[in-house]
């Protein structure tokens, strides 16, 4: 894959090392604690899914891990350094985050949007190499034939893919996606998860993703972090979490597990 065209600075963090770390982090809004004393670790070069019921604090947690929000107490470490010690443009070359973006109403073409992914690297003038990243990201998300359309002419799924392409063009080691499967049909959900899998396996990206459908978490991720009521409910390898006992603890539901093609499928229709 040609996304990594420029020689990347070698990081001392190898695949499998804990590269993003959250230590005893808490956060409250208006006196209400939304994240309570959570400690987690994310391995480099893996896909980590954040699961849990609505209002469990997943979005807040990943917002703090990308500095969109400050944390009240505790520590967030990116490759061993506190996140607050990074300059904002420096961090933007390392960690990118895509929040639920359905309320954005700026009139940009897909290509323009994706090109802004290069903003942290070359503020005003994009070099030839930058445009290479843009082209690759557009191809990777299969947006070539609609690259000159305005965002408001696209369907929800196409828009979502355009935003992901923008994050790809940003070319960060760590990619955080908050419910990227929202508004997507099954076909596009699967294709996006497969793309993420490829990014992770081929390019060594570390991907953090909030998902609601636990079967997407089960089939495509390496690790799972489960939250409930602002607390960490469980964390570990995918196969350690996907079992009736742990899921019962997270969701208060009896969930059966079936094995289909070596994937664990959760049956939650009761």
């Amino acid at each position, binding site marked *: 894959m040609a996304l990594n065209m420029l020689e990347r600075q070698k990081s001392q963090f190898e695949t499998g090392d804990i590269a993003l770390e959250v230590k005893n982090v808490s956060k409250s809004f208006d006196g209400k604690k939304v994240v309570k004393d959570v400690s987690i670790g994310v391995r480099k070069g893996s896909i980590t899914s954040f699961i849990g019921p609505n209002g469990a604090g997943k979005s807040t947690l990943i917002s703090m891990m990308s500095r969109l929000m400050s944390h009240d107490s505790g520590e967030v470490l990116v490759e061993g350094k506190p996140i607050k010690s990074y300059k*904002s443009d*420096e961090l*933007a070359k390392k960690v*990118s985050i895509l*929040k639920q973006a359905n309320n954005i109403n700026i009139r*940009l*073409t897909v290509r*323009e949007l994706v090109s*802004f992914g290069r903003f942290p690297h070359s503020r005003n003038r994009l070099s030839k190499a930058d445009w290479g990243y843009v082209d690759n990201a557009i191809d990777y998300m299969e947006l070539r034939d609609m690259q000159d359309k305005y965002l408001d002419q696209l369907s929800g799924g196409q828009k979502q893919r355009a935003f992901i392409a923008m994050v790809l063009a*940003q070319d960060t080691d760590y990619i955080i996606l908050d419910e990227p499967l929202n508004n997507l049909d099954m076909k596009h959900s699967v294709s996006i998860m497969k793309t993420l899998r490829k990014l992770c396996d081929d390019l060594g990206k570390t991907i953090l993703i909030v998902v609601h459908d636990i079967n997407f978490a089960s089939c495509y991720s390496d690790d799972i972090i489960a939250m409930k009521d602002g607390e960490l409910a469980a964390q570990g390898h995918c196969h350690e979490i996907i079992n009736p006992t742990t899921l019962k603890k997270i969701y208060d539901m009896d969930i059966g597990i079936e094995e289909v093609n070596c994937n664990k499928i959760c049956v939650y229709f009761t």
Partner: protein
Amino acid sequence: MKIKYLIPALILLSIISLFVGVQDLSIWNIHNFTEEQWETLLISRLPRLLAIIIVGVSLSVAGLIMQQLTQNKFVSPTTAGTLDWARLGILVAIIAFAGASTMERLFVAFLFALGGTFLFMRILERIRYKNVIFVPLVGLMLGSVVNAVTTFFAYQYDLIQSLNSWMQGSFSLVLRGNFEILYIGIPLVIIAFIFANRFTVAGMGRDFSQSLGLNYKQIMNIGLLIVAVITAAVVVTIGSIPFLGLIIPNIVSIMRGDNLRNSLPHTALFGAIFLLICDILGRVLIYPYEIPIGLMVGVIGSALFLYLLLRRKSYAT
């Protein structure tokens, strides 16, 4: 809408503007102008043309920046109350510092415009219900309150009449020596060009900006500073010209999108052209009298804007 059509249009309209007016100046007669005719051209007509172009460019750019930063197509110096604050500033300058120079008035008007715009932005941060229509309504209400205060004090100090001249903008009093403060808009527009990419990123919202490593607060402040200075300079010299900063960026956005890189030059040129057309029409329609420019912009602008609203309902939401 292409630059190569906009520039000739601007030049053509500029020439027309120079040779339209009460005193008979004909372009075909330029080789044997009397001294008096030359004076009319250089002291009155040329300054007027320059003032119109600068105001057209800078107010449109100010409107564009505001719309981008608030992520709302209905926000402009008019609908956010910036104009009303600037006017209150002028009144305060007149009352508090009798015989204040234009420069001092500008400064006080600028401080008020800036404070008022920041207040508006703070209110925006606070309200949860950020409907496209609701946001400018807040601005309009705020502006009306400020206006009421201005009128009250103007009444108390017997300044209603001179206040009215600030209410309705007019280019007919522009003469060499009394409009030059407008030049302050030129460097500000240049700064806007330099920051174009950053304003576009800011227009994607706070989360996107931070993910892309943009110092959101700083860009916000720079943008609002530009808007406040431009508005204040225009109100002090010409008076208020409603709608200009609202319509022009909207028309350009429909055709060129919101990537400021692409739309800023067009917004600037189209703003100047639109204002020139309004001014020429205003001078010709009831010749030898003149329709105030604010009225012309208001009438033509609101008709155009209404048309846009009805035609592209889905666009603003």
